[in-house]
């Protein structure tokens, strides 16, 4: 069973049609990279899949749950939308950490707010908090930031901030983790540490969708690559098929830009 299924997704902003019927699906544990030229709709697609944007029409299925279906309703009810957002994680290009919280608190905030909804919260408050703290520490450790847990975002480098953001997204154990150009706001020498974390996540069978302009990284880390052009999936296949032997003329032209 597919963990993520996107059927005929359309999205327009006013008169501009950005997504023109996007279709793809992916299996649990798969790493999917999305490439495509600027303005092809990659960010818009991720935003639709994370309920930050309401699609014009189409269907989205996450882990077997139909989280969005324009035939059923224009916009899912608040509670359903929240559950959908909890089942997905998104790492932004610009990190969007909460500046007033330390790295550790950035990771812990959402899970501890969520824990308040557990029926046993009042009885086991202390223990639950203890567990969340350990989990957050373990996550920061995993992204190589055990030394920086108590630092504020303004005291961290871009690469460190992005790794905190990854830990923050992981803290809610999403079924699928989305990345929107996670390294494009970073200095070249800082991209390495972020890519290393993503690579390690791939090895743990985390299901991930990565929008990226790092072709070598996409080739090495992905199980599958999608090439998007003008709001459509033009090519979908193994990294070899799409990045080395593309069938489509547009894909070849796009990849040609990177060879120079």
């Amino acid at each position: 069973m597919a963990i993520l299924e996107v059927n005929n997704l359309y999205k327009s902003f006013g008169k501009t049609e950005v997504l023109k019927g996007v279709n793809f699906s992916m299996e649990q544990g798969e790493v999917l990279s999305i490439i495509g030229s600027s303005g092809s709709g990659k960010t818009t697609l991720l935003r639709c899949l994370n309920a930050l944007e309401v699609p014009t029409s189409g269907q989205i299925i996450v882990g077997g749950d139909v989280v969005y279906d324009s035939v059923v309703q224009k916009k899912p009810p608040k509670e359903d939308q929240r559950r959908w957002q909890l089942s997905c994680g998104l790492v932004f290009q610009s990190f969007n950490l909460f500046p007033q919280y330390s790295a550790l608190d950035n990771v812990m905030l959402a899970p501890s707010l969520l824990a308040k909804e557990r029926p046993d919260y009042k009885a086991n408050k202390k223990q639950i908090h203890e567990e969340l703290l350990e989990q957050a520490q373990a996550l920061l450790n995993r992204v190589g930031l055990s030394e920086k847990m108590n630092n504020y975002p303004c005291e961290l480098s871009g690469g460190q901030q992005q790794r905190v953001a990854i830990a923050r997204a992981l803290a809610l154990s999403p079924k699928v983790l989305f990345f929107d150009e996670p390294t494009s706001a970073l200095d070249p020498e800082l991209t390495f540490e972020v890519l290393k974390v993503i690579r390690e996540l791939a090895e743990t069978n985390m299901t991930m969708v990565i929008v990226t302009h790092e072709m070598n990284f996409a080739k090495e880390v992905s199980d599958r690559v999608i090439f998007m052009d003008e709001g459509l999936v033009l090519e979908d296949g193994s990294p070899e098929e799409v990045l080395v032997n593309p069938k489509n003329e547009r894909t070849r032209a796009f990849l040609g830009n990177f060879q120079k």
Partner: protein
Amino acid sequence: MSFQTVFQSLTEGFGLNCLIFAVTLITAIPLGLLVSFGSMSKFRPFKFLERISTSKILRAISKFAPIRWITRTFVWVIRGTPLMLQIFVVLYAPGLLFEMPLRSRETAVLIAFAVNYAAYFSEIFRGGIEGIPRGQHEACQVLGMTKAQAFFRVVLPQVVKRIIPPMGNEIITLVKDTSLARVVAVTEIIMCAERFTKQGLITPLFSTGIYFLVFNGVLTLFFGWLEKKLDYYKG
């Protein structure tokens, strides 16, 4: 006339200034927050027209946001007229319009101050809230926070930090504005001092300035301290 008498009278009068100050702060801050929400309201009852019609007039109607319109008009009126006039209106209008005169001049002053400062504060709050980058809201959303959680745990603390300088300004103005209560014969400090002037003694009137200076000096120190305390992060 002894220094003792003057000092006692002025201090008593300044007590009223402090009372007006405190009550205004306590009421105008939550009220201002409410007004700021109103002025950011996106509620559009005729929004559906946008989808079913291409006529220019109907499209214009579809943009109508009544709550925002009402609150922004309120803010315009309050900021556009003198506080002194507003005090008179609050005191006399209920009696003239509804034959329900306000018994207490003090109450009229407090109401006028609360409403006036709520309008000013609301604009500061609105600026602060709208200045928080969209990415912060979106990060909260994708982390499954509710709107209330996002506002109180993420947005509001950042707003507080950003609005301290303009709020400090406004609050220092409030201290001085409290002497406007004098126009409806509420015996605040300047009115007290004027009683001595009538008896030929001018020093008490001039000394009232010391009270304001000391009070605002303390406030300035407080806001400086607060700003420093929140300086541990940027953004």
